[in-house]
């Protein structure tokens, strides 16, 4: 085997220019795959941060059925016990209670339907980014329980600004009677997302509880985890622990199923691109190997004449394909690493771009060891597979016919 490996390597280096061109072509394909994979990981990470960080959280707990109809009376069962459990749960990083209700917000200039969100500002700051995107005023810095923070689009619709009075009307939990309170705008935020900027209004949790008549209750607990995979792992035991006694606990993947589809689509796109690249690369390899075989057909005749079995010729050509693969992998890994490393420093600026109900940020490609093991393995396998057809052709040469061919 050692002789054939030596022969294979020396054969592919006979025409250095052709080999380097072929190797670079394959290497560029590998580098492109590594880069695309790294970019998609960065994109996924950014999407995840956007989805979970803006407001959703990495998971939520509700009363079963609340998400479907947002019935004010459907508060979390056994809230104290749930909160106590979450405080001591090793999986949980942060959590915050919320009260949610449909309502109407009225100003002197207009009226608009809103989703009213009652929050605990101190803990909510770790679960959502509303406090980070305040463009005017403040995020619940004062002591008044009549502070209201609204989105920039809503502010425009209601022609409201900091300090302006707004009247919030909601239906109470028991009986459905309407209740109204006046609030003053203390902060205006902007996510650059129509839904969030135009459809939500934040007040303090205690005020929301009082408005709806659900003192000490909450509709939603938003969570983040120490292990970021928990929110994506539907079979994680955490969800079973809190999906009981009339409550349901769901990760962000289940809360935003369309996002999973988007990410799957992105993954499929990478696979498809990889497949196209590999087909093109395989055709290039087959062409290179056939050219090499035809140039050396007399030599193969001599090898067969002196006693090389057909399998020996087959093996030699497959080894040549493998040697080409090794060279290509070396080139591709270097190119892939350099390209990805450089772009990972600066990232791709998609700040403010709205995509699938989230706002993107700067996307940083992410290098992983897997990219430098799995993709090169695929290149090796595909290159050797591509070499099999030329190898069969070489092995089936009739020695006398091969010896008659001269260049």
């Amino acid at each position, binding site marked *: 085997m050692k002789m054939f490996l*030596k*022969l294979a390597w020396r054969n592919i280096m006979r025409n250095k220019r052709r080999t380097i061109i072929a190797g670079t072509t394959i290497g560029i394909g590998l580098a492109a795959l590594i880069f695309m994979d790294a970019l998609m990981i960065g994109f996924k990470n950014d999407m995840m941060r956007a989805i979970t960080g803006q407001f959703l959280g990495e998971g939520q707990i509700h009363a079963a059925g609340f998400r479907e109809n947002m019935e004010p009376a459907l508060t979390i069962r056994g809230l104290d016990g749930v909160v106590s459990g979450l405080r001591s749960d090793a999986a949980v990083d942060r959590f915050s209670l919320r009260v949610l209700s449909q309502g109407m917000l009225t100003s002197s200039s207009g009226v608009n339907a809103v989703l009213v969100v009652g929050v605990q500002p101190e803990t909510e700051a770790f679960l959502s980014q509303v406090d980070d995107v305040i463009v005017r005023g403040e995020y619940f810095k004062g002591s008044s329980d009549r502070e209201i923070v609204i989105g920039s689009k809503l502010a425009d619709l209601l022609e409201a600004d900091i300090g302006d009075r707004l009247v919030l009307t909601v239906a109470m939990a028991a009986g459905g009677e309407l209740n109204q309170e006046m609030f003053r705008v203390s902060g205006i935020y902007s996510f650059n997302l129509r839904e969030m900027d135009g459809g939500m209004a934040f007040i303090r949790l205690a005020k929301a509880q009082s408005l709806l008549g659900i003192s000490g209750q909450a509709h939603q607990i938003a969570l983040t985890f120490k292990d970021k995979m928990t929110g994506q792992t539907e079979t994680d035991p955490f969800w079973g622990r809190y999906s009981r006694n009339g409550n349901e606990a769901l990760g962000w993947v289940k809360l935003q199923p369309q996002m999973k589809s988007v990410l799957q689509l992105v993954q499929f796109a990478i696979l498809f691109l990889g497949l196209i690249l590999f087909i093109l690369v395989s055709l290039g390899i087959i062409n290179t190997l056939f050219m090499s075989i035809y140039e050396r057909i*007399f*030599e193969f005749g001599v090898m067969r004449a*002196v*006693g090389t*079995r057909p399998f020996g010729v087959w093996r030699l050509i497959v080894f040549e394909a493998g040697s080409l693969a090794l060279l290509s992998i070396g080139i591709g890994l270097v190119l892939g690493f350099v390209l990805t490393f450089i772009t990972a420093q600066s990232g791709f600026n998609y700040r403010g771009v709205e995509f699938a109900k989230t706002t993107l940020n700067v996307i940083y490609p992410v290098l992983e060891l897997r990219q430098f093991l799995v993709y090169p393995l695929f290149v090796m396998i595909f290159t050797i597979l591509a070499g099999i057809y030329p190898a069969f052709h070489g092995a089936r040469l009739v020695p*006398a016919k091969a*010896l008659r061919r001269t260049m």
Partner: protein
Amino acid sequence: MNNNKRALIVAENVEKVYSENGVPVPAVRGVDLTIESGEFTALVGPSGSGKTTLLNVLSGLDRPTSGDVHLDGRSIATMSPGELSDFRRDHIGFIFQAYNLIPVLTAEENIEYIMYLQKVPHAERHRRVLEILDLVGMKGLEKRMPPKLSGGQQQRVAIARAMVSRPLLILADEPTANLDSKTGSDLLDIMCDLNHGLGMTFVFSTHDKMIMEKAHRVVTLKDGKVAGDEVREG
């Protein structure tokens, strides 16, 4: 010469027809020929007389269209391509007109190649390579690549490669055609010495008068048929 002769190659009514653009071209027609051990035989004839084709069929590099060839008592019709390869590896040495060394292997590695196929241990391979290179006058040049060798040097290495596995038979197709007369003569002397000293069998396809003069048997081919078969004394 070895007097314990045995038939190494027996060709029975061998025919070989090629197809060129759909037209059948008979290259060898009804040849009956026996090559015995220890022979130093020249196949002669004009270009296109079928010398190379006959050599290819006799060695199993090609199969006859009809008729049969027996190699050391075994019909090639019963042998698979792999078995024919093994037979050539172990029993037949080849010397080609254009030397045909593998250009990416050194002189030593080219000679070693066949022993590698025979699974001869490395130390033994190395020993025999150095011995044979000395015999053909190439001592000290074992690490040279073929492009760095002259035509005569390459042909010496080719002869060494053909002999190193101690085959029953060496087939040489115009081995001196690309050499000057002095080099050709020197190489011919080496082959004669091997024939006389070790009883190695040689069959040449040739136009070279020097070989014809040294040959013990001259088989003349014309239009694919044996037109003459002259055995000489000495």
